[in-house]
């Protein structure tokens, strides 16, 4: 299965443990979540090696300099024609084959939707244990002690992960990337795997790119409404404000369940998790399941009739009052504040 260029563990001595990190690429760059995984992995083993899954070695070669800068000496280019397009079964099986060949002490992956999915498949194939959504991982004898998110991060669970090869994914934003002395060069070792062609059954058949315009997950400002907005029509003033600020409109589950907004707008545990610069929460109480979707915002402004509401307590700023009254006044004030400049330009 492994071709000539793929050695066992290279020059590393018997005492050298290897931890693999699954790389998620963002074009030709290593994504932030992968850099976080590399930061954690460096504390777990003597050597950290990277894993790039693709049809050929091209991608691994392009990413190698960035990975070397993160202290990675070896990049495993795991290749198979089936890896030309994403497919959870093929990607998981490919990683499983590499795990069996390298026998690392563990594998850490970014806890993105795709990272979790590939690791779940690799875990199912190898029958190894997997801890997803970790916020901390430490070596504990032969095992790893992990802290993982439950309830979308509202609670933490302490657990022991015991397995010949430990598999873990890291919750996004859980750790800060630490600088490390980089290396000049990372060796690319090709591991040509041997995938069952039937795994093409779960390959992506078609991709549709996103249309233009701001989206909930990338908008710098999100104006979000809950039960306190009162009706579908009540969202008009939220739309007005969002449009003026170049932002998007979000909502709570009550708003989607009442049919006031499409589910695509829902923020929270079962909606979208967002991290805008500013989150304006209008008539939203701040239930746990909503909070986990907006807590990564840089700043939160809550507008609520109830000063005791959980979201008001946890926000940076709050206005106590009726959503419609407050937002109407804010939009009018904003238009007034912007007017002199326009008038000047016009005259």
């Amino acid at each position, binding site marked *: 299965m492994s071709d000539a260029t793929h050695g066992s563990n290279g020059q590393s001595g018997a005492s050298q443990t290897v931890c693999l990190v699954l790389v998620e690429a963002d074009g030709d760059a290593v994504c932030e979540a992968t850099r976080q995984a590399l930061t954690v992995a460096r504390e777990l083993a003597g050597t950290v090696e990277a894993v790039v899954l693709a049809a050929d070695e091209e991608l691994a070669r392009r990413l190698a300099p960035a990975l070397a800068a993160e202290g990675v000496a070896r990049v495993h280019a795991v290749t198979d024609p089936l890896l030309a397009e994403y497919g959870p079964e093929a990607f998981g099986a490919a990683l499983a084959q590499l795990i069996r060949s390298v026998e690392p002490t563990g594998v850490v992956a970014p806890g993105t939707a795709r990272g979790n999915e590939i690791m779940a498949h690799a875990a*199912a194939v190898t029958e190894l244990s997997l801890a997803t959504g970790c916020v901390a991982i430490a070596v504990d004898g032969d095992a790893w002690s992990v802290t993982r998110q439950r309830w979308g991060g509202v609670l933490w669970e302490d657990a022991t992960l015991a397995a010949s090869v430990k598999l873990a994914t890291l919750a996004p934003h859980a750790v800060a990337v630490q600088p490390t002395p980089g290396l000049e060069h990372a060796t690319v070792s090709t591991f040509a795997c041997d995938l069952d062609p039937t795994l093409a059954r*779960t*390959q992506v*058949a078609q991709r549709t*790119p996103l249309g233009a315009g701001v989206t909930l997950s990338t908008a710098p400002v999100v104006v979000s409404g809950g039960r306190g907005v009162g009706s579908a029509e009540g969202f008009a003033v939220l739309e007005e404000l969002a449009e003026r600020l170049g932002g998007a409109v979000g909502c709570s*589950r009550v708003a989607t369940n009442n049919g006031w907004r499409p589910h695509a707008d829902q923020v929270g545990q079962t909606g979208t998790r967002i991290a805008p610069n500013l989150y304006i929460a209008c008539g939203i109480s701040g239930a746990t399941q909503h909070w986990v979707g907006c807590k990564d915002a840089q700043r939160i402004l809550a507008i609520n009739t109830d000063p005791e509401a959980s979201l008001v307590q946890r926000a940076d*700023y709050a206005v106590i009052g009726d959503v419609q009254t407050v937002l109407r006044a804010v939009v009018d004030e904003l238009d007034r504040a912007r007017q002199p400049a326009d008038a000047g330009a016009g005259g």
Partner: protein
Amino acid sequence: MCVKRAPAPGAKIPLTADGSAIDTRNLGFTMSPHEECAVEEAVRLVEAHGGSATVMTLGPPEAAEQMRDGIATGADHGVLVETDRTDWDPQATAAALGEAIAQLQQEGARFDLVLFGNESADAAHEQVSVRVAHRLGLPIVNGIKGLETSDGHVALRRDTAAGSERYEVPLPAAVAVKKGLNLPRYPALKGRMRARKATVRTIAALHHPGGLTSHGLRYPPDETTETEILGRGADAAPRVVELLGEEGLT
């Protein structure tokens, strides 16, 4: 479809004094919203194409309540894979669910689709579904928000940051779905009556523990912030606009 019983907390989740578990004395129980969509989708498929829908849950005897919720929504059969009252790790859960489904198949049941939630509400391991599918030799894709069956295939759609992906998977298949796939109906009174009367099958679960051992729950380090009250009602508008200015938005 596989659903899991989980507490339904409010804004704060109460823990027992020793921090080992959630204090459920004053909480109701529910299934995860993703799983509600899995149940709704199965019921719609049966309504459109015939056949039957079976809802399965692994848990203590009380988990029969979530199974009956599934029947109230329109599922035909319920199977409780009964455990003790401990929280099973994902490998043990998947092994027992896989064995139970295999047992039903040996008895002659044929499943075209096995539906899961993308993740359970409480544990969110994102892997029980995938492990069960592998045990049954079924293809599986996670995070699905669009599902359409055609002759021998199911077309699946999932959203990504860059757009959406479409999969064409041959049946039988497993699918882990996300909230937003459909709008689950509220069970009608008739459904509730039926659920109360429905007989549910119980299969004893064998415990094959995996390598993930929980030591308890705790609250993350405090993230509370000092809230600055900008004002009351319409009078607060100038301060809000000032704040928007500080954020570079005016």
